[in-house]
């Protein structure tokens, strides 16, 4: 690489291990501390010679490893016993023996990875490919079979001549000046670069789109998102009208759906009798359905006070004697069949619900003109409930 004229360090080459050890010791004794030795392989006793303490890497492994292990154990407890409990093979949610293998593996994994990262990034400060030493013949030599030492300009006691002579005195094969490399620069807005950015952006987005929305849905990929069966209201290409839902054949009778015999008769001579017994649940349902279907026109209490305030002809009150006199069957008939402006509700409301509504209407009528006897009843109830 191109060099600037800023001196980085003064270096020397030695040809035997003993010499370099000696040199290192000497340099150390001279009081230099911004110096380093480069050898093709680790030399025993060099650490001592350079006065280096022993390495701290081990601690990283220890702490990260232990952390990783305890973390994964906690994590497994949280997932299976806390976040989403599942009964698996009759085992307890936190089945410790079964968690041990993974705990161990993760301990090792985190330990190893953290050690590696720490080593490269923290201890070695690598990657550092534009270090001044690179591409120097000095480097080329020490990487093969010679042993080098250099003292950088950052050293407070740095003095080129002194150092060179020191090295020579120690029997260096040669000494050497190493200069800082020049900083290379790119302009932010150079056209090529911007084009490249755009290319990358478009390329990635395009491929992502194809991958996530097209490729992942062709055979063999199958997410069981679209199944061959027909769920309600699905379309079917088999039938002309593209409806998967079919209408029953005329004249057929489904179980429990015997056609209403008085359909279409305005005021029938005979009607059905009420098959239901008004239980509390039934009345509750009746109320619900009444409020849904009937109250808009007949009002919440069937007093003919429409909730549609005049946008639609009010339904009559259901408290008139005429209607009170109606048999249950008749009310049912009217709901089923419709009357005057009132449409038929047989398709919206099931038979059972219709009867429930009838029962509820009876309740309303009764409540509207209650007798004293009812009060007694109510008293009775309240007292019984009281106890």
């Amino acid at each position: 690489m191109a060099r600037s004229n800023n001196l980085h360090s003064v270096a020397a080459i030695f040809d035997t291990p003993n010499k370099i050890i000696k040199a290192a010791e000497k340099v150390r004794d001279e009081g230099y501390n911004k110096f380093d030795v480069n050898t093709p392989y680790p030399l025993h006793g060099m650490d001592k010679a350079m006065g280096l303490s022993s390495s701290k890497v081990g601690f990283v492994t220890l702490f990260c490893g232990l952390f990783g292990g305890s973390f994964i154990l906690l994590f497994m407890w949280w997932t299976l016993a806390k976040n989403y409990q599942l009964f698996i093979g009759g085992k307890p949610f936190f089945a410790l023996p079964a968690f041990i293998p993974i705990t161990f593996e993760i301990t090792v994994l985190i330990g190893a990875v953290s050690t590696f990262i720490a080593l490269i990034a923290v201890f070695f400060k690598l990657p550092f490919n534009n270090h001044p030493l690179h591409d120097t013949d000095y480097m080329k030599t020490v990487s093969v079979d010679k042993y080098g030492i250099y003292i950088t300009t950052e050293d407070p006691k740095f003095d080129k001549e002194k150092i060179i002579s020191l090295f020579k005195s120690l029997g260096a094969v040669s000494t050497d000046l190493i200069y800082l490399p020049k900083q290379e620069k790119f302009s932010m807005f150079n056209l090529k670069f911007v084009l490249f950015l755009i290319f990358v952006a478009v390329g990635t987005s395009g491929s992502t789109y194809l991958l996530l929305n097209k490729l992942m849905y062709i055979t063999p990929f199958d997410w069981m998102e679209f199944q061959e069966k027909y769920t309600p209201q699905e379309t079917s290409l088999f039938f002309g009208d593209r409806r998967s839902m079919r209408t029953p054949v005329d004249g057929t009778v489904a179980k429990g759906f015997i056609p209403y015999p008085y359909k279409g008769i305005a005021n029938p001579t005979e009607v059905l009798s009420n098959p239901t017994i008004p239980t509390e649940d039934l009345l509750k349902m009746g109320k619900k359905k009444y409020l849904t279907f009937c109250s808009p026109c007949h009002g919440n209490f069937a007093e003919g006070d429409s909730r549609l305030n005049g946008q639609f002809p009010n339904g009559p009150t259901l408290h008139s004697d005429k209607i009170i006199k109606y048999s249950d069957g008749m009310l049912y008939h009217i709901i089923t069949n419709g009357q005057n402006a009132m449409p038929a509700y047989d398709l919206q409301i099931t038979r059972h619900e219709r009867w429930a509504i009838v029962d509820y209407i009876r309740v309303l009528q009764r409540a509207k003109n209650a007798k004293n006897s009812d009060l007694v009843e109510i008293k009775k109830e309240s007292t019984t409930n009281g106890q």
Partner: protein
Amino acid sequence: MVENIDNKNMELERDPNYWQGFFSIQKDPEFDKAKRNEEKKISDNDNSGLSRRKFLALVGASAALAGVGCADYRDKGEIMPYNKMPEEISLGNPTFYASTCNLCSNSCGILVRTREGRPIKIDGNPEHTVSKGKICARGQASILDLYDPDRLQNPLRKTKEGKFIKTTWDSANKEFFKVLESAQGQIAVITHQINSPTTKKLLDDFKKKYPTTKIYTYELFNDSIRNKAWKKCYGTDFYPIIKWNEAKVIVSLEADFLGNDGNKIENARLFAEGRDVENIKNFSRLYVAEANMSLTGINADYRLKVKPELQYEFVMSLLNELNRRDNLELPISVSNFSLKTFAKNNNIKEDLLKHLINDLITYKGKSIVFAGRSLAEETQIAVNLLNEVLGNNNLYNSSESFISNSELNSLDDFNKLVSEMNSGNIFAVIHFDSNPVYHLPENMGYKNALKKVGTVVTLTESANETSVKSNLVFAINHQLESWGDAKTRTGFYSLQQPVISPLFNTRQKEAVLLNWIKVENENYTEKMYHSYLMDNWKTNIYPSLNSKIEFTRFWYGALNDGVVTTNEKEKAKFSFDKKLLNSLSTSPKKSDGYTVIVKESYVLGDGRQANNGWLQELPNPMIQSVWDNYASISIETAKNLSVKNNDKISIDTGNGKKEYPIFIQPGATNNTITIDSGYGRTTIGKVGEGTGFSISGLMSNQPKFTPWIFTDAKVSKANGTYTIVTDQEAHLFEKTPSENIFAQRGILVEGTVNEYKKYPYFLKEEKGKGNHKSPEIYPEQKELYNGVKWGMAIDLNKCIGCSECIVACNAENNVPIVGKEQMEKDRRMQWLRIDKYYSGSYDEPIVSSQPMLCQQCDDAPCENVCPVAATTHTSDGLNQMVYNRCVGTRYCANNCPYKVRRFNYFDFRDHFKDGYQKEEVFDLVYNPEVSVRSRGVMEKCTFCIQRIMEEKASAIRENRGIIGSNVKTACQESCPTNAIKFGDINAKDSVFAKYRNHKLGYYALEGVNTKPNVTYIAKLRNTHTEES
């Protein structure tokens, strides 16, 4: 200082070889420039520019951003609601229709489950007098025929070149009507047995309109011999219905009454009622004397191997023996028949016969001897006599009897018909949903005779051997698209109504005829036959019922119930007519040489439904074979012929050699060969074609013995082999080193009735051995399952191994058809299987059947090993399968001791017959409540969880607790003998709980300690033990 450096370099220059590079520094122009501007530091992080790393970072960032920006979700398709919602349909809930199945002469009542107007499942009609909510496998599977892509979708006409082209109904009708108009000769209408009074009337009307018409009725298998014999003995038309449930001793001679003789559903139900451990006092005993292993034989307590032609001798010698014991004044001499010699000739154990005789005497009047429909007339008469003298006739159901709307024609009638055809007297043949070319004996020459007929017309659902020989083919409705009625017995009518309007351009067969009758004054309408049916009822049937309600309401009620009971009673007086007895031969015949028996297939019947994958893949109860029929022979016979499994033999019953692969059947009688019907269809559709071998080549138009049994056949080894695929390894049907391994491992636990009577807990001790309880690392999960907990109990005393439940399961759970070659690779997909275990000796095997399905173990081994928790336990004790989560490692399947997990090795729907199951119309059959599994997904039985969810939903709606007995699994619903019980284990006082904690209850492989939720009720065999 610059100079100094130079000096240094000068010095260095002298130094050898190193540092050449350093001069470059001097010569470097940069160097000088730098010299001029001294000590100008350049910091690393100079933001005027951009370092390599920053550059790369930017690129990465822009890429990531762009990527994230492009996620998108998929369109789920549009919604197509009803315009006008029908009252009976509420989305997501099933609607039920009562109707009638008319696939065979039993005409059972069915209940069709529909979803949004599409039929998805067929069950028995609970209100029906006979079927009582059950229906056979064929009936259930017929839902698949409705959606069969191979159905005829239009009427076809044959061109000069003999190709079939599709045509319109009008032109086809016109064309044929012209033919009918020009009445130059006879018209022959060929049909299966008619069970519908209205159809009968229709045919009569047709006859009125075209007087030269003759109706020919046939059934490949029928009771005509038995009925004839009965008529001779007792004068009434039909052999009576038998009260199997009241019999203490049942002796079945070549009669597969649990399999295919009579109404098997009813028989099975009644039989099982007599085999109830809760009512151990009247636990019936079944003797079976038959040529080859049959479904009835499997369930026998004692089994005798008797060649069919020797049955007469057997009965007579029984009579003789009984006569010797206590003199029943017999009208004929049976002295020539000695039981001893008979036993010796057919090496039957003496003591076995002793037991039989004793039982017949001790249980006089409570025993029944039943002769198979295929046996000769004199045997039938002899059996009637035997029952008569034993006073068994009070087991005949005198209140009810069969009824027929159409007399079956004999083979001779058909022989005449063929000669008529050959002589050209017949100008039109109408095949009324029948397939004589396939069904009638080959040597009758019907196929060629058709060539002589002016116009041949076939009304059929799918192309068949007959339709390809006809000029016009009318595509007709499936039974679920048709109106109709049926009357097979006294006491009730059953009604048939369509549950969906025709899927294709087809018409109901009756409507087509009706159209030809009224062609000039009325055109075809959908309603045509519907109104005709109603008119017939209004005018003919309704009055006879003298009901109070007016007709339309009665009619709707009838449709709602599917069945109309009448108060007509059969006043059958059984008086035995002794005159004819001297016609019986009074000395035994010799029989040597091979006897060939043609038998109605359990799965395919007479082959009408051969294109039905569910049936083709339904294991044959004997040896679990699928997709084929075969010649079933004994090991001895195989040795004599020097053949082994899958070798071919050639059989000649008097009209040419026919080749069949053999399979060795333990317990088969020597020198008898049994072959199932229904296979070897040449024209029907992708699925059925080329499966198995046709039997019409064996049948004869002048049978010497009976139409289904051929004595003195010539049999020899043929060259070549043909692989019969069985669901279990073949050696399991033989004596193997692993013999009785299943008893030793605690898969099957069996005892005898006497043991049970003596000490009900006798099994609980036995079970202990072989099973070691292993100590558990983990504490018991107490807090689990204190709500509802689902469980199943299977009563092996009632299970007859008919495998009706398998079809029900397939239909309910969208189980795919995999095809023969996949079955061969052992990749069956059925969630439920009926395991068959043969033990004992080769000649007298003891057979045990065991329905095997997911046991829903509390400590399920499969759950522990699934790496993605795709199979886990619900709080109500189900071992559930999360299909979408399943990656398909198949580890669970390996770790399942019951091997009930099924893996989708392919997308079988696509893989089978190149996408046959992917056809649009096929999709309609799937149950919307069950997901259709993709390839690479593991699946298995989950106790019909969708039905459990239905119950949960309704429980919430009606705010009540969940009631276990409200849920019925598909297999339970379909089990004809109610062997399967299902319910809530924690409901201590429920009926189910009784079985869950039964004295005879045990778990399969209890030693593995998986804590299953399926309890098996040990099978009791009602055999004699020494002391009793």
